[in-house]
């Protein structure tokens, strides 16, 4: 029985390693990959490996379902583009939708859920009203949550389209306003790259740093293996096209106050996915790196979450990262009285 997700990491890094798996190991690998939302990426990585028929069929299903997800994501982005046709500012696609829209390797087989876009903070009201006019509605009518999003988060409360049942998150920066790093949102918008249809995606370094911020400066590392796989593929791709890329990444990380996070992400990607850093300095391995790796791999061969204590530690940390202590206490008190969950 697999006790962690190491076999998945090996298979992604070195597809030939999957050739030696036994039947029960295949079953476990598939469960782990599905649980980590990496089954589509795995399927593409193993496309040229000789596989048992049933495994081949399972992976072909994954490729087809992610191909549909890709088309739906692009369609949803286009719906937003049309809804915002009169908005003169830049609309920047984020995360998975951006990867497929820009045709990056990180988009291949990637699962994509909500549509994430970023606009200038001063334009949020205009954009929100245009979306409401075009059929999107608020998901969370709770006044505390609504206020919380608007005062402290990096995005509007989520909106859902009443006919297509798809969510859109409208961001104005890449981290909650309560987080300690304060990325330069204006710089991200200013250097965004325009696509053929008029929508934008972030410039390469910003795209990587957004993924880094999402993985290490926000949230509890749920889906972390997938996010780290994104970072690995993005950096490989951009560094392959521009040999100065890692240097540019470093200087851009300073702009956004994300140097520590960026270095840690590269260390973790090098460690787990063999990301080549070609002499670029990412600092010494820290003790905490081991905790991150333990957390990232916390999944057993039944697809169950393991290392509950480590997971809980990162969950607590995610709140700590987001909020100063007094605010956290107030937030948890309000949430406890309502018996609800925290946003995000």
């Amino acid at each position, binding site marked *: 029985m697999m006790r962690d997700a190491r076999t998945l990491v090996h298979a992604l890094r070195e597809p030939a390693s999957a050739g030696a798996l036994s*039947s*029960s190991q*295949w*079953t476990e690998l*598939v*469960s782990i990959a*599905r*649980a980590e939302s990496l089954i589509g990426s795995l399927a593409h990585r193993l496309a040229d490996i000789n596989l*048992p*028929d*049933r*495994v081949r*069929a*399972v992976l072909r*299903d994954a490729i*087809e*379902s992610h191909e*549909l997800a890709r*088309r739906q994501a692009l369609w949803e982005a286009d719906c937003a583009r049309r809804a915002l046709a009169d908005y003169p500012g830049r609309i920047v696609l984020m995360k998975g939708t951006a990867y497929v829209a820009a045709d990056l390797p990180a988009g291949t087989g990637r699962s994509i859920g909500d549509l994430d876009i970023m606009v200038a903070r001063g334009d949020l009201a205009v954009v929100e009203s245009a979306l409401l006019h075009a059929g999107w509605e608020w998901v969370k009518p709770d006044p505390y949550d609504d206020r919380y999003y608007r005062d402290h988060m990096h995005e509007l409360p989520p909106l859902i389209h009443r006919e297509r049942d798809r969510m859109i998150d409208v961001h104005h920066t890449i981290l909650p306003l309560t987080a300690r790093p304060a990325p330069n949102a204006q710089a991200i918008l200013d250097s965004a790259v325009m696509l053929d249809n008029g929508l934008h995606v972030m410039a390469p370094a910003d795209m990587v740093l957004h993924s880094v911020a999402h993985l290490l400066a926000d949230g509890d590392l749920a889906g972390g293996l997938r996010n780290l796989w994104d970072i690995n593929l993005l950096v490989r791709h951009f560094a392959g096209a521009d040999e100065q890329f890692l240097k540019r990444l470093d200087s851009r990380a300073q702009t956004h106050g994300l140097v520590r996070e960026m270095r840690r992400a590269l260390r973790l990607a090098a460690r787990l996915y063999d990301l080549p850093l070609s002499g670029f300095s990412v600092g010494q391995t820290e003790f905490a790196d081991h905790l991150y790796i333990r957390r990232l791999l916390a999944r*057993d061969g*039944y*697809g*169950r979450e*393991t290392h509950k204590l480590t997971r809980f530690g990162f969950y607590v940390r995610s709140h700590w990262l987001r909020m100063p202590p007094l605010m956290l206490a107030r937030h948890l008190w309000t949430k406890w009285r309502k018996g609800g969950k925290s946003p995000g």
Partner: protein
Amino acid sequence: MQPMHQILLKIGPAAFRIASAWRQPLEQLEALYRDYPVPPDDLVDFTVRLEPGKPWRRHIRPSVHIGGDFWLPDAAPLPLSQGLLAGEMGMNLQMALGWRRHLLLHASSVERDGEALVMTGLSGSGKSTLSAMLAQKGWRFMGDEFALLSIDSGDIEPFPRLISLKNQAIGAMEEVASAERFGPEMRGTPKGDIRHLVPPKSAIDRMEEPARPALLLFPRFGHAPALRDMGQSEIFVRLTQASTNYVALGEAGFCALTRFVDQVPARAMDYQSIEQAEELIESLWSERR
């Protein structure tokens, strides 16, 4: 982590690993699926997980949370006495959310003369009972939950799971089927009283054998016997609603379904008793095409 027990099952084209924190549901599944083949090379498509929602629910008032490769966030747990049902629901969930090799119709199907009769309808329409009854009268049982419509050939492939009998259907089938084919009776489940019935041996032996769909019925129990023609657009829309993966299959699903609607004659059928239904079905079957 708490230890898990597991078994592997193969039903029609799909193979499952059922993992459970308790032995009891697996022993019940094993007994009822005893005549089924094992998955070739022990390879499976899906894992179902039956586990306590909270760690202490393993022993104290044990409750079974249904999870696995595919899962729903709001699935209500079942008491351990209904663990068998949880296993069956877990397999349904994997198929409904994850299967892409056929268009899945929420329908029962039976075969005779090499051709399939497909019956679809809401819960309570009697599609499951009708398929079980017809299987006692010379039809081959192909499935009572999902009809698998082949995207390439347009054939129906068997998916002969345990037949899930509910409420009055339990007594009706107890009169005609032998006792060793029944699972434990589960009272007061979220779907009422449930008792599982092992399909006839022919259904299991021939579960790799597809059949050409020749008639589609929309049965409705509790109304005076009547047959009604339906427009193709009504049939199409009702089948999209009866399919769990129509949207997920995209264009392939649309093509398979339009061909099915084009080629297979369909009727709405009201009935008040099994005998009436059998009579109506016999007449429709003899004059099909």
